[in-house]
């Protein structure tokens, strides 16, 4: 009978952690870029005649 709850092998667990970290980092970069973009748009709009 399968173990419940299922346990990940150490290699799978490490891979999972690595991918979660990658996703978190991608999310962080995306949000920082979005904030920078909004900042740039606002500056340009303020300067527009």
């Amino acid at each position, binding site marked *: 009978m399968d173990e*419940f*709850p*299922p346990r*990940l092998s150490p290699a*799978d667990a490490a891979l*999972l952690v690595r*991918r979660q970290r*990658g*996703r978190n980092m*991608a999310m962080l970069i995306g949000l920082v870029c*979005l904030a920078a*973009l*909004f900042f*740039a*748009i606002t*500056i*340009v709009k303020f300067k*527009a005649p």
Partner: protein
Amino acid sequence: MPALATGAALPSVSTADWRDWLKLLKPRVVSLVVFTGWVGLAIAPGHLHPVLAFTAILCIATAAGAAGCLNMWWERDIDALMRRTAQRPIPAGRIEPNDALAFGITLAVLSVLVMALATNIAAATVLAISIGFYVFIYTMWLKRRTPQNIVIGGAAGAFPPIIGWAAVTGNISLMPVLMFLLIFFWTPPHFWSLALYACKDYGRAGVPMLPVVAGPRATRRQIFAYTLLLSAVAVLPWLLGYAGRLYGATAAACSLAFCALALWVLLDRQDETGLSMTGDKPARLTFRYSLLYLAILFTALGIDRIVG
């Protein structure tokens, strides 16, 4: 089993990495969309601050990616049946369908809102319409119902030059409509050339592409007819005075070559059912040329604007 009794869920182990998320956005399709959108923006009369122009192009790319993502979410069942698409992240099980849906909706909403903020309501409205057209009209309604799916659905891919133009001017005039028509009439010969040699895949998935429903012979006739129509539309910007001689000469020469290829597809050596006996060599070449054709014509429009 205590975990089940308390309703605990199994841990969800995603095997997707960033490349899978990128694949959801159909980057190759996005590149063509971005290019045509950029030309629409570049040749529009008026000036847009480089930061806002960059944002507009980014929004067009994001919206196209979002539409592609929602298309993959909806078509995950037929994607699993076709060799060409079976390894996409959703049918391959690397990304959960609900995650893809959330990703697509987030990007779609974000792209429209940022476009409205950076440019104007007209551009944001056309952007929203183009996403809606691709997802609801083409993907959900037409694609599995009619062999004319890509004729009408092709309009979705034709919006970017209008969006680019509207981002600069805030309105839509005849020139962006001509660019829309150029992509609109380009889509059928482009996709049907591909469908001619990939029709077994489409047939297996039950997608009523023209070669599956009407047969290869009728498809060859349609490719030729639409290429003639496309050629007439391609020279219109020059004939109506919206583009110069450089574009006119390029459009005429490239269209002649396209017509010659479409004629080759029509006259390709076939068996009694219309199936190619040359391994669909003309159709394969026409498909590749059609990509080059659109790129050359839009480049010529851009250069014509700079030198003219």
